[in-house]
């Protein structure tokens, strides 16, 4: 891994010194803490680091005008971040010439990759990036319970939500200028941090990631109340894969799952 990090640092420094990018988004590790860091000088590249606990999804920064304004830029990208970049690209949020990835993962460093090359790297080294087994086990365990037990479980969890929207801020997929929860004419989702408003928010937040969630886990990691958001995301990703073969973030241009259809889609639940 250390060789990989060295190569990544060298590439970051090279890109900056050549002027190919103006900014590199990466992580630095201090003790047990992982911070995102923004590097604009080649000399600072030594500070870059990466390990498996760097869960914050750097692609989420790409919607911020102060970051975008400094394009072209490079992002230290774990496989999940790479997938986020491809999702953003297929939703026309970032363009090929704006962003490059310094692709890095458990199998080593993949080099400086343009958006067009990310898919091939992912398919070669991480072709079936699925949620961790432990998470799937928890999903299965909860799914096996009765509807009432599930309702009770989620009621207890959702009641903790303070509606700080840290989950939204951490998610690269949540890039709307005006989030649906902030719409007030009409107010679909109550903004009060309780009851139905919390339920609607959690469910809609998850559903808006249908066919788009790359499973990076940044939302859950960001939640100060410790809500198990990844249970929702994983369940939805699992359903989307099993029913529609959805594998978001492997293609540069992909039709959105919600917003496309096939005559062969399952209709057995419709009477």
């Amino acid at each position, binding site marked *: 891994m250390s060789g990989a990090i060295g190569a990544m640092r060298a590439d970051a420094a090279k890109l900056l010194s050549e002027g190919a990018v103006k900014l590199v988004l990466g992580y630095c590790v201090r003790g047990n803490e992982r911070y995102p860091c923004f590097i604009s000088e080649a000399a600072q590249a030594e500070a870059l680091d990466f390990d498996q606990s760097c869960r914050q999804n750097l692609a989420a920064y790409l919607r911020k005008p102060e970051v975008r304004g400094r394009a072209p830029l490079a992002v230290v990208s774990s496989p999940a971040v790479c997938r986020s970049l491809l999702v953003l690209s297929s*939703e*026309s*949020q970032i363009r090929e010439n704006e962003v490059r990835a310094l692709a890095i993962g458990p199998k080593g460093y993949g080099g400086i990759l343009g958006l067009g090359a990310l898919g091939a790297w992912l398919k070669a080294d991480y072709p079936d990036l699925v949620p961790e087994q432990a998470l799937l086990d928890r999903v299965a365990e909860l799914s096996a319970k009765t509807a009432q037990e599930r309702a009770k479980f989620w009621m207890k969890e959702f009641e903790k939500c303070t509606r700080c929207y840290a989950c939204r801020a951490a998610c690269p997929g949540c*890039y*709307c*200028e*005006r*989030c*649906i929860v902030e*719409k007030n*004419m*009409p*107010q*679909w989702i109550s903004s009060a941090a309780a009851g139905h408003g919390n339920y609607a928010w959690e469910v809609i937040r998850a559903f*808006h990631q249908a066919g788009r969630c790359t499973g990076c886990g940044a939302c859950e990691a960001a939640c100060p109340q410790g809500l198990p958001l990844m249970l929702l995301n994983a369940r939805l990703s699992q359903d989307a894969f099993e029913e529609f073969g959805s594998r978001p973030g492997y293609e540069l241009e992909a*039709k*959105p799952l*919600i*917003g*496309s259809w096939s*005559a062969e889609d399952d209709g057995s639940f419709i009477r």
Partner: protein
Amino acid sequence: MRRFPKYVNAGRALMARIGVFICHCGENIGRTVDCPAAAAEAAKLPGVVLSLDYKYMCSDPGQQMINKAIAEKLLTGAVVAACSPRMHERTFRSAAAQAGLNPYLLEMANVREHCSWVHSERAAATAKANDLIRVMVEKVRRNKALFPIRVPVEPTALVVGGGIAGIQAALDIAAGGGKVVLVERSPSIGGHMARLSETFPTLDCSQCILTPRMVEAASHPDIRLMTYSEVEAVEGFVGSFEVTVRRKARYVDPEKCTGCGDCFNKCPLKKIPSEFDAGLGSRRAIYVPFPQAVPNKPVIDAANCTMLTKGKCGLCAKVCARGAIDYKDQDRLEKVKAGAVVLAAGFELWDHSAYGEYGGGRLKDVIDGFAFERLASASGPTGGEIRRPSDGSEPKTVVFIQCCGSRDDKKGKGYCSKICCMYTAKHAMLYRHKVHDGRAVVFYMDVRAAGKGYEEFVRRAIEADGAEYVRGRVSRVYRRRDGKLVVKGADTLVGRPMTVEADLVVLADAMVPRRGAEKLAQLFGVGCDTDGFYSEAHPKLRPVETAAAGVFLAGACQAPKDIPDSVAQASAAAAKALGLFAKPELEREPVIARVNKNLCVHCRACINACPYGAAKDFEIKDRAGKLLRVVAEVNEGLCQGCGTCAAVCRSNSVDLDGFSDEQVCAQIAALE
């Protein structure tokens, strides 16, 4: 300028003043719903300034009552609780419009079909009626005045495809007073029909009935032919399409050319297989596809002409007295404005090389229907004598195999190509007429001869002309060393395998859409079915329209069709186009989607989801023309108002007029 009717107000400018009008419908509603009680209940609703019930709201006095209330109470909205809006919404909305209320500020609560007729218990029915009225009052409070979308109509039709369907549509539209631009991709109009020898069930000579139509189309002052041309791009929408047409280089100036023929008589390249003759005859590198071509002006086949490929020859330019040959000619793009489009892209025959058991396309004497047409045609490569392609001898036994590629979803197509039973009977008949001692054997699955005079025609082929009909499939055709084609099949009526030694085999290949038809459909926003045929808007009631407003279908591009069906549909498409041209402006229901461009982040979900291609990218620029950002936009002319875009928009930046988020939310909330 839009011309708006002058309404009392535009809706929300004033505090809501809503009138509720409850109809007894004689006893139909009144028997189960306590209408006076419902009126009293409605009067208590916020914003309701007037609540009445009456025996027959749709009667003249009933409508007068609404009119009067609108005028006197200065209503900003009205709810009529009566029958289904499918019944009388139009009635009440026009009454409202007459009284000066924007018609889209009136809604109906369906208390008859959805309430009094389906429930018998009076209290429950009245309670439900109250709910339905309350929901509609809440909706109307949030209704906006809407105005029919008016689109100016360019009274020109673009007809794509110059076969019989396209020609017929063009002639009918021109006869009805419209103008037509007829785009045909080959050098001549006429299509497949020009290649046929005779037509079923009358055995009319195909060219004799077609060529006068071709000439008529060419000489009509309101029809402009654009042959050797293809549609390149489409912009705009119903009423005002702007279509870019690629005019392919002909290398012959049609203005100067007199069609004398010196050039193609001198062209030294004589052995190019003629597409028109299904490869059985040949043409030159400068050619007219067939003698009766319209326009009768040659083109140069750039792929074969040595002057164009190697810069050697130039003979045609030397012999052309008019100097019409221009080797430097280039493709040109031309824009055409049209209010309506008729797609008549036609068909082609399925490539039977997928049938390995029939020789996989490798056997010279296994031919398709068009090749047989050309053999039988007096103007064909054999002058109308049936000769087999391999050695030019007269075939003494011809086997016709029906359903080659049709009704075979494993190797071919699942559908029935509809015309093959008939043309096979015709082929067998023509063959027997020409080769009296010959044997015509037809293998069929079923004979589908539904049509005027069709069954009789098939009977005639069998009984009068002695065609041998064998019900069964052919399992294999192979060429024996002596040149005979051995046809192995089964006679399923007798229950025996049988073998025929034939000299010629004619396959009735399935009809499939033309290559490139799908691309053309995409340009116009027209859907295709799984087989690539163009999708009509409704299989029963709108068989000529498409999902794209103002784009109509004619002929075999929609489904396999024979000539009379193609012509009938072409005339229907022409009537549709003329219907559009009857008024200078189009009026459309104003239920359309709108994008809030301030909020849109251009995730393109709506653009992907829109079935009409109405949602498109829109570039926001500053005054200097600098691109600020890209958002989505809905084209009013194309949007049909389904609202799918609004539902896929995560930030709800798209909304639907008439069924807006606010309206629906208020309706749901009113059900508490």
